């Protein structure tokens, strides 16, 4: 071997490019297999992740997989930015029922999950943290399934808005509860007040600053969708990095970046570019890695409690949507569909759970297991619920089958 120094050492070193490529292709294949079974592609991505996890630990590349979180962060950044861009505060003013159903579903989910977990003998703070995390719907799942089914209409649009708002609210409430925890554990009032303040103000400021950088650069560029896409994608990834470096909330910062990038009342410098196709590369890897990182064993230890949490959460979401649905002019079918699209629970919840576990190890293994088990279940059930909801509401595109070439007459068929 030493005689041929140009040859690589064996076994080959696994690198990020190889890992990214393998995860991407394997995820894509899993997604296509799922699609043939008329399931959402995400289910395939996640199942590939589940399958990769034991292989990875056998090959001892677990650490590499953990470090591959960079892909997850980029994907989440893109998702949150896209979602923030879709949050139209003007709409909430024009249709108060939308704002009301957002508050309604968040409050009801919180109450239901809090009550359920309290009944299972968790402390109020533990139950509160879990309830706050449960408010968040996975934006990546909703965006991706809507894109895959080419859904369009009121249910889809309202779902985007409600998901943006509940992600926002969940991260705000979790941050505030963490401050309380901080105080209870260390009796340090200064930190308990300053830390959440730093998180809110800092994340919002970062989002705002990135948006004005985007605008300023956009003004100097030709108005071509390609250029604006590159600009936005670059700044989104940079914003994720800045948020992490500044120990800020990635969720808040990126949602804020998206929201401030909307053009309302401003100069319309930044084009509303479609991030869809390019960001899918990262979304596929996001779900594969999420699947691989979820401990399936949690389901065995905390399966029942998780089932109760999931049921309480679903009841809260559906009830919240239903209370204001008819006032907002939604048909029953649309309200049911909308309720279903709010069910997915994935990366945002996982991210919040990580934050909580990092800052507050006392959070408890047991509650973490309940949340993770709920995540495992919803990782598969969530996308299916969204796909069903969008189809049931009539917003997913019907299957495109070319009509058989049978000649027909013109008579009586004019527009």
């Amino acid at each position: 071997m030493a005689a041929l120094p140009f040859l690589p050492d064996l076994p080959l070193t696994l690198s990020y490019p190889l890992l990214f490529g393998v995860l991407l292709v394997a995820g894509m294949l899993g997604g296509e297999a799922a699609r043939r079974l008329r399931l959402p592609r995400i289910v395939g991505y996640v199942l590939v992740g589940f399958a990769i996890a034991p292989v990875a630990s056998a090959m001892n590349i677990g650490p590499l997989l953990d470090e591959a979180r960079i892909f997850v962060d980029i994907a989440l950044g893109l998702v949150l930015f896209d979602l923030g861009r879709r949050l139209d505060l003007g709409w909430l003013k024009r249709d108060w029922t939308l704002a009301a159903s957002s508050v309604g579903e968040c409050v009801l989910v919180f109450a239901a999950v809090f009550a359920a977990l309290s009944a299972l003998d968790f402390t109020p703070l533990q139950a509160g943290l879990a309830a706050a995390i449960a408010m968040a719907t996975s934006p990546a799942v909703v965006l991706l399934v809507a894109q895959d089914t080419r859904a369009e209409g009121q249910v889809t649009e309202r779902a985007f808005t409600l998901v943006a708002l509940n992600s926002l609210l969940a991260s705000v409430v979790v941050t505030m509860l963490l401050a309380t925890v901080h105080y209870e554990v260390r009796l340090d009032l200064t930190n308990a007040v300053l830390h959440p303040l730093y998180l809110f103000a800092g994340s919002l400021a970062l989002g705002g600053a990135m948006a004005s950088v985007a605008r300023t650069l956009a003004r100097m560029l030709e108005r071509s969708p390609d250029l604006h896409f590159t600009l936005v994608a670059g700044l989104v990834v940079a914003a994720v990095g800045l948020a992490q470096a500044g120990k800020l909330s990635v969720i808040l910062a990126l949602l804020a970046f998206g929201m401030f990038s909307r053009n309302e009342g401003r100069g319309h410098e930044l084009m509303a570019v479609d991030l869809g196709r390019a960001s899918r590369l990262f979304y596929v890897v996001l779900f594969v890695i999420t699947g691989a990182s979820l401990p399936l064993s949690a389901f065995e230890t905390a399966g029942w409690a998780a089932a109760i949490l999931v049921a309480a959460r679903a009841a809260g979401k559906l009830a919240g949507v239903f209370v204001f649905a008819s006032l907002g002019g939604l048909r029953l079918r649309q309200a049911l569909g909308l309720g279903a699209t709010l069910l997915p629970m994935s990366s945002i919840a996982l991210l919040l759970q990580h934050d909580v576990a990092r800052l507050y190890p006392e959070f408890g293994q047991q509650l973490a297991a309940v949340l993770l088990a709920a995540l495992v279940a919803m990782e598969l059930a969530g996308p299916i619920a969204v796909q069903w909801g969008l189809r049931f509401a009539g917003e997913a595109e019907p299957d495109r089958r070319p009509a058989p070439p049978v000649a027909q007459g013109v008579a009586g068929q004019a527009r």
Partner: protein
Amino acid sequence: MPLEFAKSDALTFGVELELMVLNTRDHDLTRGAPDLLRRLAKAQLPGEVKPEITESMIEVNSAVHRRFPELAADLVQVRDAIVREAGRLNLAVAGGGAHPFHRWSDRRIFPAERFLKVSALYGYLAKQFTVFGQHIHVGVESGDDAVYLTHRMARYIPHFIALSASSPFSQGEDTSFETSRLHAVSAFPLAGHMPPVGSWDEFNRYFDEMAGYGIVASMKDFYWDIRPKPEYGTIEIRIGDTPLTVSAAAELAAYAQCLAAELLRSRREGAVEPLYRVYGYNRFQACRFGFEAMLADPGAHTHIRLREDLLATLYRVQRVASELGCAEAIAAIGARAEAAANDSGWLREQFARTGSLSDVVRLQAERWRDDPAKAAPQEGEVRLRAAK
């Protein structure tokens, strides 16, 4: 079975306007018509708002009117209601003859039996028919008058094309045409114009023959630029793009009313065939060049610039216009013709300024919403009560 021509009062008039339903993110067309229509069904409005072939379109039908100011006020009221309800659904609505950058394959057929049949028969033509036109109805007293007016109005079709043109962009590109919408209409096998029949009886014989071949079942199967509409007792001018404002739409209807009045008052003689020999050429000239089109005049064996022909015609109908209460509308059209200003020009200006078709559509939705300004509320209420 002859077609019964419903008698209506001569020179009453009304319009149908097909409108774009847009998202407010990038102002592409979106699937908003079903929800918007459901909300509008609860509103008390003069006329009707109806579905069209794809779910990104709605159609406004005005009530029947005698005078221009009433039609104009009506349309403002309906427009305000549509804008308000669309806002609650986070949708925008706009005029204009075609969406500048939508992809026709993204459109969805409105799930009504008639539209599904059209789609099954015409394939992709049905989705490509997501274009937006203004139809003007003018009442006539008999089928014979309808046949006469349909023929004689053909001479003025280029005027309506130039005045209403508002679809210079298609599939993301400038077409160099003033209106690109008419190509979507021309693709249908029964598009074109009425054959040179001389009377309602003769028309009926033609219709029976076509029905006998199994090609048509009703007047709706003819996609002609102008056609008699026996059910309403009107002629229907279907050539125009939907203008960018309701006032322009009302003015065009007033022009049609005045032309019809003038044509009925001083009846033209002579064969209609020569009119149709130059028809296709003149129609193309108007679509391509708008006011600067050179029209072939079959009588004089010469060419005349569309704008000059239009101004001369406006001058001729002035008297009739003041009798009908349309003087204001005719003056407004005259001013636009003098300035050679139409909506296509405005759209091109917006594109030159913003460099983005998405912005162009946003601006055209704003123009639809704001121009002319909202009806004063009291006035609206009075009209509403009167309508009840």
